[in-house]
């Protein structure tokens, strides 16, 4: 049974790596700034999921905290980038 699970984890990790690569291409190529922000958003979520996969493969729960931290900081980062695009400043007076 473990062979099937290992194969599934490998497959999902490969998928997430490809997804992250596509997002990175969009990050580099993106014609306007909003494309880049969207690509950044996709990238951090894919990276977080990939980290969770790593935790599954090594059967450890230590990766959970890292994933939570990535999710929170990525959220704050994307919000402030989008806010900057919207107003030209992050914290309004």
């Amino acid at each position, binding site marked *: *049974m473990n062979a099937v699970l290992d194969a599934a984890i490998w497959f999902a990790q490969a998928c997430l790596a*490809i997804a992250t690569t596509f997002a990175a291409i*969009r990050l580099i190529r993106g014609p306007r700034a909003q494309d880049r922000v969207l690509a950044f*958003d*996709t990238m951090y979520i894919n990276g977080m999921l990939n980290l969770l996969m790593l*935790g599954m493969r090594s*059967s450890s729960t230590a990766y959970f905290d890292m994933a*939570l931290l990535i999710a929170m900081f990525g959220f704050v980062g*994307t919000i402030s980038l989008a806010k900057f695009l919207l107003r030209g400043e992050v914290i309004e007076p």
Partner: protein
Amino acid sequence: MSTVEFPLWAALPAAILLIIGGLVTVTGSIGLLRLPTFFMRMHGPSMGNTLGAGCVLIASMLLSSALQHRPIIHEILITVFIVIASPVTAMLVMRAAVYRTRVNEERQRKQATPLTAAAEGKQDGERPAAG
């Protein structure tokens, strides 16, 4: 690789969920890459953010519960967080894109200097009264 033997009830659903999650996420990223306009590209990643992340996190919950012989629902926190956070991000990016597109169009239409067009765009944007 993992040396622990997972029971069948956890391993099989987790494997199926992982495969579905991986396929959904990669499809969303393909959409991000090859759809023609920004407003269409907007819809691609939200696939990976909802169903993709959900599948992977449920699989992770199943596996860690099977490993420790008690229900581990840690991952549900990340799920809740992503479910709350990703629509907020998408809405803000969308508003920013609409605003920037409109400013750009006005700038092109009026052929004015960039500075005045940006200032006008800012005035009729929905700035709250306190701003």
